[in-house]
């Protein structure tokens, strides 16, 4: 469990994180979404105490990260891709981290196997590809068998096989009851792995929600129907949870709240000919961009206001 309490982080004049306040629950994958520069990495760095918040505080399993006797057992983190000395082998790197906690060599071997680094473990980390570097970072994150796993853009640089591996890994860790907190700037990737969503833009919290309700808000599942009698069909489909839209004079309707199967049956019963019946997934990416774009505009206007008041 990660608790972020009214955290503000300012670098000089720049507000990197502006009053973030949310909780990351165990047992599910929580996606941390936002465009580049939204403050995701800064927030993650504050969670493991690399950066100190300007105000507010962050706790992990009820304590500040640095107050735990075995921090790597509480949180395993993958930060920016390279947090490794290029002159050291993957094995030596992991072993040096393991020594700090008294983690046995056996566990180092385990995470090397788990991350698929068996063949390159004795090679210098500096010779690794981006994908191999990510795998080494993930091996390091899992080293302490941590209660909370926090990964910053883990799929960056991974091949399709690696991306699939990450998805299954994250779901598996969450299923074991761990807290899994993963950042991404790709909504589509999060929709596949995450249950909960925390969305930020320009350092501010935009949404603390679930993937399901985000999809719902974005318009849910829609069905496109092209029929011989759109007027009559529209009347037939009407109901409390159903919305039907369509331009007058065309044969096409957009329906949400009913499945393609239900629409087809209703039309058949009424003897209306169906020419096209297509299930349309909403574009999560567009909904996400709409949300974060608003944030950018909102922030710009407040920036101007602040400057004005300072000048006055």
């Amino acid at each position, binding site marked *: *469990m990660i608790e972020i309490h009214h955290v503000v982080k300012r670098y000089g004049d720049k507000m990197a994180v502006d009053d973030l306040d949310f909780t990351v*629950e*165990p*047992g*599910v994958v929580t996606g941390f979404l936002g465009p580049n520069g939204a403050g995701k990495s800064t927030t993650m*760095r504050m969670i*493991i*105490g*690399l*950066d*100190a918040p300007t105000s507010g505080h962050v706790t992990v*399993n009820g304590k500040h*990260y*640095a107050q735990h*006797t*075995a*921090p*790597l*057992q*509480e*949180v395993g*983190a993958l*930060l*920016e891709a*390279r*947090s*490794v*000395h*290029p*002159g*050291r*082998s993957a094995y*030596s*790197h992991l*072993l*040096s*981290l393991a*020594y*700090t*906690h*008294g*983690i046995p060599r056996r566990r180092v071997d385990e995470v090397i196997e788990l991350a698929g680094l068996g063949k390159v473990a004795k090679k210098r980390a500096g010779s690794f590809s981006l994908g191999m570097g990510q795998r080494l970072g993930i091996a*390091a994150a899992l080293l*302490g*068998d941590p*209660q909370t796993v926090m990964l910053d853009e883990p799929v960056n640089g991974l091949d399709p096989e690696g991306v699939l591996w990450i998805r299954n890994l994250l*779901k*598996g860790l*969450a*299923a*074991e*009851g*761990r807290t899994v907190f993963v950042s991404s700037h790709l909504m589509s990737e999060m929709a596949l792995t995450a249950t909960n969503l925390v969305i930020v833009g320009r350092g501010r919290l935009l949404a603390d929600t679930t993937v399901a309700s985000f999809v719902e808000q974005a318009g849910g599942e829609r069905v496109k129907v092209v029929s011989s009698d759109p007027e009559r069909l529209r009347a037939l489909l009407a109901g409390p949870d159903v919305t039907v839209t369509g331009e007058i004079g065309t044969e096409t309707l957009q329906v949400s709240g009913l499945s393609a199967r239900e629409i087809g049956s209703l039309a058949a019963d009424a003897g209306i000919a169906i020419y096209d019946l297509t299930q349309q997934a909403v574009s999560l990416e567009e909904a996400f961009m709409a949300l974060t774009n608003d944030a950018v505009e909102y922030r710009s206007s407040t920036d101007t206001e602040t400057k004005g008041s300072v000048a006055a």
Partner: protein
Amino acid sequence: MTGVQITSTPAATTTANPRYKVTFRRVLRSEWSKFLSLRSSWITLALAVLATVVIGMVAAYRYDPVHADQHDAVALSLDGITLAQLVVGVLGVLATAGEYTTGMIRSTFAAVPRRLPVLWSKCLIYFGVVFVVGAAGAVASFLAGAGFLSGKPIALTLSDTGVLRCLFGAALYLALVAVLGAGLGMLVRSAAGGICLLVGALMLMPVFLDLLPSNWKTDVTPYLPANAGQSGFTLHTDSTMLSPGTGLLVLLGWVTAVLVGAAYRVKHSDS
């Protein structure tokens, strides 16, 4: 499949298995393994020994009583310390600044978020290693040089008064310079910046002293890090130098001051 299980498991996993614990001894073990696993550590140490022994031998071989700047066999055998101090100083700078330039520091501080044990461990390890290697180099240089000097008036043996004190004083000097480098590297977090400060502290400070009035200069000069340290491995210190013990203590003071600054920066700024 997972959707059903997840709601029931969190309570069971909130009690962490308390098998692991960070202790100072373990951090020291970790830093030792980091030192051993970098090829550059070994190359640099070998260079430091090579510099001490080769320069010491050449000085002894070329010794000419008429044009000599050095008055005794110990001073000749330690001629290479001027170069060796830079090599071990750079080793120290890279031990700390290297973690920042490579990004390794994030892994290090994620594992040891209290941070200071990392700095102290590095200081202890580099002090110990450089002291042992420096002592071996100084003794080897002295013995090798003794071969060329035997029969000449300045010849000395290990059992002569003050000889071992000087050789081990030189090792102590090198070890303190390595720790100074480690402190500077942690303070400025950049290899280039750390090395500049190191060279400045050891070699350029006397140049700046020329700007001072001459009577101040004579008072201050013995207290500069390199001069103070040098008195620790000089057989016969004259009136312009501190006594060997005081000299090494003054150098220790400089190193401590840098470490206090480094510790403050490590503890209080973002990594």
